[in-house]
């Protein structure tokens, strides 16, 4: 069956079974590979994308449920929050292996769009669905605080 997906501002026709997770449509069909596979059951957050701006695990959303909602992936992340977060990630050299970092950044930017000056507790709540086996958590936390400060300045 063919589905019309609006991804990163463009419309795509994707031919796939209804139960195909959005993750695999993005990766295997649209070749948007910044969104990663880590568990397939919404436990690790490596596949975090936005659905109408809200963070969501692409591994657990069937393509048939996307409808007219707009999908944003790491490749099209933009805006002041995204720039601040990516700059903070660079300034603190957050990533190690880097595999989970697309998802981390998607969650971090989504947080800053809603909470301008997040507390540690806000960060825990927004980021606890994103696993990092390299345990870069200390720097993720510091980078989110730093990005928030930069946005405020």
């Amino acid at each position, binding site marked *: 069956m063919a589905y019309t997906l609006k991804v990163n501002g463009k419309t795509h026709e994707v031919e*796939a*079974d209804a*139960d*195909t*997770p959005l993750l*695999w449509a993005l*990766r*295997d*069909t649209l*070749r*948007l*590979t*910044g*969104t*990663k*596979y*880590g*568990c*397939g*059951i919404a*436990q*690790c957050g*490596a596949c975090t994308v936005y659905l109408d701006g809200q963070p969501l695990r692409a591994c657990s959303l069937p393509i048939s449920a996307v409808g007219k909602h707009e999908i944003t*992936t*790491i*490749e099209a*992340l933009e805006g002041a929050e995204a*720039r601040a977060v*990516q*700059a903070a*990630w*660079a300034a603190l*050299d*957050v*990533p*190690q*292996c*880097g*595999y*989970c*970092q*697309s998802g981390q*950044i998607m969650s971090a930017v989504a947080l800053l769009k809603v909470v301008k000056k997040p507390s540690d507790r806000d*960060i*825990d709540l927004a*980021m*606890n669905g*994103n*696993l*990092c*086996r*390299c*345990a*870069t*958590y*200390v*720097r*993720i*936390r510091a980078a989110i605080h730093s990005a928030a400060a930069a946005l405020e300045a």
Partner: protein
Amino acid sequence: MADHPLPLSRRALLKGAAGLVVGVFLAPGAKLAQAASPAAAGPFAPNAFIRVGTDNRVTVLVKHIEFGQGPFTGLSTLVAEEMDADWAQMRAEHAPANPALYNNLAFGPMQGTGGSTAIANSYEQMRKAGATARAMLVEAAAQRWKVPAGEITVSNGVVAHAASGHEARFGELAEDAAKLPVPSDVKLKDPADFKLIGREGKVRRLDTGAKSNGAARFTIDVYAPEMLTVVIAHAPSFGAKVAAFDDKAALGVRGVVAVKQVPSGIAVYADGMWPALKARSLLDVSWDESAAEQRSSAQMLDQYRTSAGKPGVVAAGHGDVAKGLEKATKTFTRDYSFPYLAHAPMEPLDGFLHWDGKTARAAFGCQFPSIDQPTIAAVLGIEPAAVEIEILLAGGSFGRRAQPEGDFAAELAQVAKAFGPTRPVKLVWTREDDLTGGRYRPLFLHRMQAGIADDKIVAWKNTIVGASFAKGTPMEPMMVKGGVDSTMVEGATELPYALENFSCELHIEDSGVPGLWWRSVGSTHTAYAVECFVDELLQAQGLDPIEGRIALLGDDARYAGVLREVAKLADWKGPEVRAGRARGVAVAKSFGTYVAQIAEVSMAENGEPRVHKVWCAVDCGVVVNPDIVRAQMEGGIGYGLGAVLYGEIRLDYGRPVQKNFDGYRCLRIQEMPAVEVVIVKSAAPPTGVGEPGVPPIGPAVANAIGRLGRERPSQLPIVPGAV
């Protein structure tokens, strides 16, 4: 950010660099750029490690895989330092599989990454490579400007002759330099003149940009025309074989191209991951488990406890433990047990292979090229030289990709072979494959016995029981000597402490569960047993954990160095902090690096320990990148903490119970303590940091729990599993 330097492919990297060194990515049979010989014109390639493009870029071919520990940046720092390059012009990419050029000097004749050796074995080699390149660029400038080479200076990538006013960047000299003979003996810098090595803030990681915008390319991101995605239905227990299978329903899934039996299970070939997964779930496979490991973890531990009561092979010892125990006025016995642990890197195992019947081209996060290359060749019946391996960034390893028997490489080749040389394949393990697929940190039991008399430890006996993953593999001659597998006892045979009657014995048990090294290997359990037990003895004597340890130390002053530094950093005033919180100490040396940690812990209302903060002192000799050293300590602490708190793969009648991250609990951000790291100044030769942050965290937390008036957890993980 957008212009950050991580190469997406060799081709992308070299575009603009005179285009002569071309790495063709996906076409099989195409020759890789000959790393050994410089191109005839254009890029200046003074040796196997450095390329200088006419576009001024300096590319370092890094012989160690980058999966987070920073060799791209570290090895490039060594080159840039001796070249006097500008950091902004540096790029890094993986060297291809070529053991003749890219051996790990710490491993002997073998190309591979592991044992926290990347910096240690590259320190001189990469500096020499950089100094050689610099000497040739200077000579090219001297000839062009007709001035003495000795009057030429190099700074921030600019070659200059002050008296004549000449100046050139590396790129402008590259073609001339390429025509010069390679000097055999070059002088290295005096460390006092270092501008990058060991300097704070001078170097940022080369891979951060691409790892912050989705551009970094991992194995799972490889696509090629006609490529099939492959998943395998693996056996439910270790040693089980396919008895029969029915693939009718699986073949009915749209996008599924074939189903084939391979040695490790039933492989599904499809146009994409989802059809492959769907079809795999529809396979009807009967397994013959008659020869499989069918014991539960608990049964194995029972057996290990029985073994621990018998004499083992003596791995180390001095004095007379029995006599020491006789004269003791107080004796202590404690068993510590350690579960199977999966490495669970964020990117499960995966690999790309295009076999055309004669040659093969693989691309994956290959950690042991010297093993994987001949393994692939043997399966396909071709010469190792006919197998090219492009090494890609990997989403973590922690030991998982370093396979002494090359099992994943073999499976990748078997999958390609079973389909035939018509289409390339990408084999992907799911998280379930990863967690139930074995190669675990093996199950271990430590039995500790000690005696105290006259305020002194007069006997120490440590009996270790576990399985050896080296036995029966090509690694056995290197790792198993006199009946002792050194990876099972490291950290328990040479203690920091001078003990008069000491013995460490080993029992190697048979097991059908495939094991593997797991970040810090033997020290994952030996440091816990040793440091918990010594702390218990100190506490029983009413001694301070820091001062008590220092008083016990032998001759190696670097242990005292890290203990004193960490105490200073934490403003140590004893283990008691305030109501409900205590601090625990542990120290361990692994891979030549000394690490001491202090953990501040309370018990939460749900009964789980809460680790608030960890202070860490590290002595890894000469430091190349201080911020990467800190990052590895932070990461090692988080990785180790997650394991001691929650990590367990439990076997139930031989079958792994934890199958995904819902059951295999890993540390999350709200459980990560604050971390403060101090690097001890040292002129000793550099040692690694990828693993040594791990061993002390478990015992530091347990010892804090001990100082809270509870028993130190003797059975890991500390928090019982949810599954």
